[in-house]
């Protein structure tokens, strides 16, 4: 059975229907972007209702918005209503894109989740909103050319059927996504420039993406002899970096490295070992408990401890124990020379 749509009825529906689609689709997007705004959070169950409805209706809203953009461009000459609404589509599109670009830059310039934690704006939804605005603007622009300037050379890109158009659309969104990353790239480039280009080669070769680890391992290196054994914590949640033997070896090579778990095996296989043996003294956190390394008694010739403020404390001829290390306070790393 085929449903016949009366043209006159359709013309009556359009002036009401299109603004509803316009407002509805934008509203659903805005609700999802601002879902964690304090004002909305106060609404309680109503907020859940709004967010749930928006998630449910958003795909339909965006599909209708897509066809609305085509329809508005087609009817551009048929009255002020279409012109005004199409201009609104364009304005909303550019505003959302600009805001998305700006908030992405803020995120890149500060830290991950900055925009959400400080401004309560849910960035993934804003990116989604902006991606679709690119699509709407692109479709509106091409439809406008198609209906108003059918001989335009730009139409040649998409003028060969549905599939060609279907290929162009994801391409446009890809280009937009690449463009959206531009703030990140610019910020990263600026940071890299500041961090490396104006500094000496020695400083430049520090390990930039491992945080404080570099300072810890540099301390261990400067307090241990090359021809020695260094026993380090076993790799775990508490010691993800200083417990990682290959990572430690990058800075400590050619020192022989032994993980804490295989300490007994090393001593049983090397009973007459004459070189100096060091222990890395470390503190880590697993869930809520603080874990120290080493955990057993050791007669130490010397213990050097680096604190977070750069201060270094030295202890000579002490017996290392858990009590001793707990009394060291908030230290960064230590090196124990065993007797």
């Amino acid at each position: 059975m085929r449903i016949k749509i009366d043209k006159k009825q359709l013309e009556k529906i359009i002036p009401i229907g299109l603004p509803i689609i316009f407002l509805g689709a934008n509203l659903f997007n805005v609700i999802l972007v601002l879902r964690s705004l304090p004002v909305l959070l106060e609404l309680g169950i109503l907020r859940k209702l709004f967010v749930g409805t928006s998630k449910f209706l958003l795909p339909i809203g965006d599909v209708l918005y897509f066809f609305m953009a085509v329809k508005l461009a087609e009817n551009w000459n048929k009255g002020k209503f279409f012109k005004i609404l199409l201009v609104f589509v364009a304005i909303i599109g550019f505003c959302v894109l600009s805001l998305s670009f700006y908030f992405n830059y803020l995120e890149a310039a500060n830290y991950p989740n900055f925009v959400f934690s400080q401004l309560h704006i849910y960035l993934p939804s804003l990116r989604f909103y902006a991606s679709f605005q690119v699509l709407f603007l692109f479709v509106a622009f091409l439809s406008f050319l198609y209906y108003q300037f059918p001989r335009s050379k730009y139409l040649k890109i998409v003028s060969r059927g549905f599939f060609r158009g279907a290929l162009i659309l994801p391409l446009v969104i890809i280009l937009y996504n690449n463009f959206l990353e531009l703030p990140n790239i610019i910020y990263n480039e600026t940071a890299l420039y500041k961090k490396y280009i104006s500094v000496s080669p020695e400083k430049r070769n520090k390990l930039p993406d491992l945080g404080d680890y570099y300072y810890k391992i540099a301390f261990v290196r400067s307090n241990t002899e090359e021809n020695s054994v260094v026993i380090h914590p076993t790799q775990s949640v508490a010691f993800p970096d200083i417990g990682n033997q290959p990572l430690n070896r990058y800075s400590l090579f050619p020192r022989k490295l032994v993980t804490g778990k295989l300490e007994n095996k090393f001593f049983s296989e090397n009973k007459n070992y004459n070189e100096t043996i060091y222990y890395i003294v470390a503190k880590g956190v697993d869930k809520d408990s603080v874990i120290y390394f080493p955990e057993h008694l050791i007669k130490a010739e010397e213990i050097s401890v680096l604190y977070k403020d750069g201060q270094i404390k030295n202890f000579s001829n002490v017996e290392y124990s858990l009590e001793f290390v707990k009394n060291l306070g908030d230290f960064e790393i230590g090196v124990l020379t065993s007797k």
Partner: protein
Amino acid sequence: MIALVPLTYLILLIWLKLSFKKIELLELLASTNLILLGLAGLVPFLLREYAGIGYKYSIFEIMAVALALITYELVAKRKLIFFRADSSIQENTELKLGDELNADMSSSLGGKLALSVRGGRHNLISLAKKLSAPVIFLMIFGVILISRGFYLPIRGWDAISLYDARARMFLSGLSLGELKTLSQYDDFNYYYYLSYPPMTSVIHTTLYSTGFSGVMWVYALFYMSFIYYLYLLLKKLEINRLLKISLFAAVAFNPLIIGQMNIAYTNLPMMAFQTGSLYYLIKYIWDRNNKFLIISAMLLSFANWTRNLEPIFIGFVLATLYAVFTYKKLHILKKMILSIVYTAISLLTRTVWTYYLRNSVGSIGDTTPSFNILISRLADSLYLGNLVGIVFFIFTALTPILLYILLMGIGLVWRNLHSKRRHSLIETALVIVFITMVALMLGGTLYFSTTFTWWDKIGGSFLRSNMLIIPLAVIYVAFVMEK
């Protein structure tokens, strides 16, 4: 010693120019980059491990290979006139390398480098005539990227603890086989140093041995080669100019790919080698020049020497076999010889690595299973709960490149259902590579899901391993859209 690196580069560049008379400047640069880096990552390792020659001689070894190649081109092919008796020809065709090449290369970009060989004068680089605006842009872009690479330190966790760490240990005199003894008292990373082939580590070693303090500019070279090949492929297609620029920008400025320039991982080098291999495979299909097929196999071999976990080379070999065997003008014997040569060259490094591992450590565990174990694990993985988990994992991990997969999908549907034109050979070759990648992606995840408990925690690594989909999808779509 540092000066030997650009000198070797120049020798390889001249060799390539002599080998391929009609070669564009960008292609020349892209291929020279990859061949130099590929040799730097392979030759010193083989000589260290099998001939005991230390890494401090690396650059001399590569230079020797480069000189051997150019000598073969000039002498063995009897192109140099002073090997000919006819003095009248000699007058017109003397080698002018010394004068023009040195003077013009160092002085001005607008100059012309010339090398006179048998059969007339070869313009090494006719810069003034041929350079278009996009080429100038891409060259300046490349120079900027290389320059910034000199200032970057090694970045990326695995880059520090594995790739560059191996390089520093190689420099100290250790061989790769000896590195496993260092992990004697490590309960967690026993085979870590043998988990990847040594391509990038040996490149680092070679450069450090010549006096370079940083090596991140190498990754800019890989990126340059990658985008140059992409540009050259798109340039040759008959599609709208705006569309070409869009397709190029969609790949070249993808944040995932750009980000790889700042970390010394193996994904970008692997993708650059594979793209180079694909470029020459396409050129072979266009021109049917066997030299292109050899270069394609060589670059694929370098890719296998960079990473061996993802056997994507299977797709390239299948595509090549298809391209060779569907060429009607070729005798069946030649088809077979070409196919065997291509497969042998591309598999050479992988075979060397497999045997090296077998001799050094036997096996490095479940990442290189036997065929029987593989089939058994795949069979174990085929239950509904696991399949749902795998689909979810793949979908989540590949989200950043889903639009490229969508592009490929629409292109495939269009070509198969709608377009009246038959699939061209190149389109089929691209589809073969893509389907192989998808099959390996699914098969690999199925295997991992029943082998490792951490299989669903490696989404980032999984995504990087499938980065080739980005250029592959865009190149395919470009061919589909061609008039």
